[in-house]
């Protein structure tokens, strides 16, 4: 049964808290820890890297000029990488075939079993 009237709520609670006593010791640095938690809770959350990237993709990348540049640059990277890799592979195959030609003709370079 509630004996305290609603208007006297704060007054009654204050009185009760003043009377309240406890012997239990507080943990070490309790007060600082509480303040730290309060500060953390109040600080605005820093934007994560992913949020920044997502924001950039959502707002900046769709701009026509930037989108066209982005696609053109990636296309150029793909072409250049393919061409470079192909050149190396062709040189490797041709070098191997040349060595094979010599090994076929020169008994002293034929691999022994």
């Amino acid at each position: 049964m509630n004996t305290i009237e609603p208007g006297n709520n704060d007054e009654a609670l204050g009185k009760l808290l003043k009377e309240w006593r406890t012997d239990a010791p507080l943990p070490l640095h309790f007060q600082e820890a509480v303040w730290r938690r309060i500060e953390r809770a109040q600080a605005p959350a820093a934007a994560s890297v992913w949020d920044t990237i997502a924001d950039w993709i959502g707002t900046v990348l769709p701009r026509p000029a930037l989108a066209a540049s982005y696609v053109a640059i990636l296309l150029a990277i793909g072409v250049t990488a393919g061409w470079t890799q192909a050149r190396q592979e062709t040189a490797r195959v041709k070098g191997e075939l040349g060595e094979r030609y010599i090994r076929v003709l020169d008994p002293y370079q034929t691999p022994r079993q």
Partner: protein
Amino acid sequence: MKKGFFILVLGLALAAAAYVCVYFLCTSSARNLEQSSQPELAWLKEEFHLSDSEFTRISELHAAYLPRCAETCRQVEVQNERLRALLAATNQMTPEIESAVAESARLRGECQRNMLRHFYEVSRTMPPEQGRRYLAWVQERTFMPGEGMMRDK
């Protein structure tokens, strides 16, 4: 947001497609060489810009040389085996070892003469400029391997 991701993925997909297309296009000649019936001769044709008739003649010379080369190979193998056995049986020079070493040198000389004859024949079948280039290339790899190694360092 959706549009941005679409552009992002489109760019990456185009880059990958461009890479694959260019790579396959530019390696097609090397793939053709590897898939031919005699890849080393196909390589020779491409490397020294041979016409079909020159290539046919060189293929004939090549086919004629191979049995002689195989026979030399067999002799070299037998001689190496003999020399290995003689060297393992003693710790000093013996008349047998001397004769085996001399025989190895004779075989090597004969092999080099045969090779050189073949190289000259092949080079004469090529256009003069390509023939000179071919001779320089084969001689460097067969007669002057030491120089090649020194140069590579």
